[in-house]
């Protein structure tokens, strides 16, 4: 069942069809909110709120203007920013995962660098952080990010570049990309 059909059936009062959208997008939405807020526990609460708002406002979604995921990420972005403003944040918990094909010394070093990068991302100003996360982790095209952030495509590009430079500068020990 494609997204258009699912949305149509939800709008025709088939509420359970919305579950298909929740199943499809729960992981990226929770992950994105977690990245934005830096709070594991808050992320699921905010993500729930994102889906609830999406359900309530589904009649306002216009497929000719954007993809459904762009629309959903816009809600997620706004909810995350609100959550950050309300300062309900607790501590960041990095998402850790070992790599089997590395020797222990390399793995420790990589783990350390990854954690430092994660902390540096967390410390980025919100405007740079949002754009960086959407572009790098979720690979959204620049024009969609521009729509979400209501900025120009050129501004998106410059923010991604500035975020990368800041990350490179804030993490000692590895060189930044010369992009």
């Amino acid at each position, binding site marked *: 069942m494609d997204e258009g059909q699912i949305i149509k059936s939800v709008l025709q*009062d088939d*509420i*359970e069809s*919305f*579950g298909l959208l*929740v*199943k499809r997008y*729960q*992981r*990226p939405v*929770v*992950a994105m909110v*977690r*990245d934005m807020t830096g709070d594991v526990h808050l992320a*699921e609460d905010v*993500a*729930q709120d994102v*889906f*609830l708002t999406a*359900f*309530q406002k589904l009649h306002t979604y216009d497929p000719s203007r954007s993809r459904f995921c762009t629309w959903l990420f816009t809600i997620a972005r706004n909810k995350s920013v609100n959550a950050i403003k309300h300062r309900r944040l607790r501590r960041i918990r990095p*998402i*850790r*995962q070992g*790599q089997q094909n590395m020797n222990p010394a390399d793995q420790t*070093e*990589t783990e350390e*660098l*990854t954690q430092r*990068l*994660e902390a540096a*991302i967390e410390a980025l100003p919100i405007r740079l952080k949002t754009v960086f996360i959407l572009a*790098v*982790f*979720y*690979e959204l095209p620049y024009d969609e990010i521009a729509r979400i952030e209501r900025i120009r495509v050129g501004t998106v590009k410059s923010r991604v570049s500035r975020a*990368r430079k800041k*990350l*490179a500068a804030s*993490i000692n020990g*590895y*060189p*930044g*990309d010369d992009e």
Partner: protein
Amino acid sequence: MRQQDLENRLKQQRSTIEVNPAFYESVMQQIRIAAKQAAVRSWRWEDWIGIRPAVQTALWAAAGMAGLIRLVWMIHTILFQGVCYSC
């Protein structure tokens, strides 16, 4: 390790994160409640008794017309017969 590699590593981690298994049911529960609340808010007696919109309009028009005729008739009797049958 280059910054790009680290970014890719973080990106890969995001695609494998585990969402709490109760998350889905919790979201759907809230959505069912929201749908019920929305249904209550938009409830109208016309829907409940199942009258079609066209019939509703006709009934309202007929009731309005009857009221208007009654009013005109009352004014007529007061003016030309000096009697108010409603009093």
